[in-house]
């Protein structure tokens, strides 16, 4: 696992107990994880960080965040992370602190990174309506059941998207459900392989 020179520079500062004593170091680690996984804004407000120069704080925060994201992206194990931080002259205790914090947040990080990216419109839910048509202004006595199906979809970029709605007869709905069941069966077989 490799970090850019900028990030490495930030870690070197983080590793220096004179520039970054114990409490601020722990606080910065927490802040870095929180800013990525929870709220990007509030993270650096920790009182333990108030004595650090803002420019330095920014540099170190960026370095920490870069390391977290890179480790998450590569699914790096502890030894890879440790090696990387050793190159930045961090002592064992600080490396262990980072790794512990990383392990705690690893799953959430993976989910976050996995959700970034382009994909086709994603179906999240379905609603349906059954109606019995009696007449319309062109034709009376139609007497036919009809389904209106609405698929709720989400766009990976913007979140919401107008739903996909369509009408169908009972036979068509049976066809649709049959095909979905084929897909599900095929999924089941694939997971058993």
């Amino acid at each position, binding site marked *: 696992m490799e970090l850019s020179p900028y990030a490495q520079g930030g870690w070197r500062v983080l590793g220096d107990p004179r520039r970054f004593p114990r409490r601020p170091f722990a606080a910065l680690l927490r802040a870095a994880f929180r800013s990525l996984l929870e709220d990007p804004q509030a993270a650096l407000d920790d009182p333990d960080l108030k004595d650090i120069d803002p420019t330095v704080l920014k540099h170190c925060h960026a370095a920490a965040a870069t390391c977290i994201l890179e480790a998450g992206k590569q699914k790096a194990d502890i030894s890879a992370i440790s090696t990387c931080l050793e190159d930045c002259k961090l002592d064992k205790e600080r490396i262990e602190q980072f790794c512990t914090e990383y392990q705690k947040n690893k799953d959430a990080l993976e989910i976050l990174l996995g959700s970034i990216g382009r994909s086709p419109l994603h179906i999240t839910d*379905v609603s349906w309506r059954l109606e019995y048509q009696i007449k319309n202004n062109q034709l*009376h006595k139609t007497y036919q059941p009809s389904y209106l199906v609405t698929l709720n979809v989400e766009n990976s970029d913007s979140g919401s998207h107008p739903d996909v709605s369509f009408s169908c007869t009972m036979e068509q*709905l049976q066809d649709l459900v049959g*095909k979905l069941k084929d*897909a599900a069966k095929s999924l089941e077989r694939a997971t058993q392989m």
Partner: protein
Amino acid sequence: MLLVLSAEHRAHLGCLPRAGGAAVGELGRLALEQLRRGAAPRACEAAARKLDIGVDTIQHGVEGLTYLLTESSKLMISEIDFQDSIHVLGFSDELNKSLLQLYLDNRKEIRSILGELAPRLPSYHNLEWRLDVQLASRSLRQQIKPAVTMKLYLNQNEDQTAQVLQTDPATLLHLIQQLEQALGEMKTNHCRRIVRNMK
């Protein structure tokens, strides 16, 4: 339910007895072609020459017949009601019989043509699906993320659209469960009762 024919309609249809038996068949054919494909002035002219009747008369006759057939088909009136409705025109029994036959022979087709005029939402045509497993992306390596990618074909007003959609295994099972419930609804007593009573 009786069909109400306005004075204008009656006037249009009034040309039929004068035209004769063969003409009714010809005009009926023209009326149906008009319903299937739209107005055809050339065909009317040809018929006018063949039957030795004025083009205007032919035109009116076709219009009158078209209205008679479409309204009867739309309302799905019974044989008796149809006969009673045209009785006011005072035609011969033979002519009445021909008109009734014309109605009964073509009712189904006319209804299906009228059915296409109704307001419609995009309707289901077909679904193709594919099983995918995402292995990596720019932001995350070493993934195993199964997904079902689908292409939903819909028809709207003679255009066919295809939309690519994706879903995860859990949502797929949820979709199947929900739609199976929807299918099951038609078989419930409530729905059966409504269908039985609305005929």
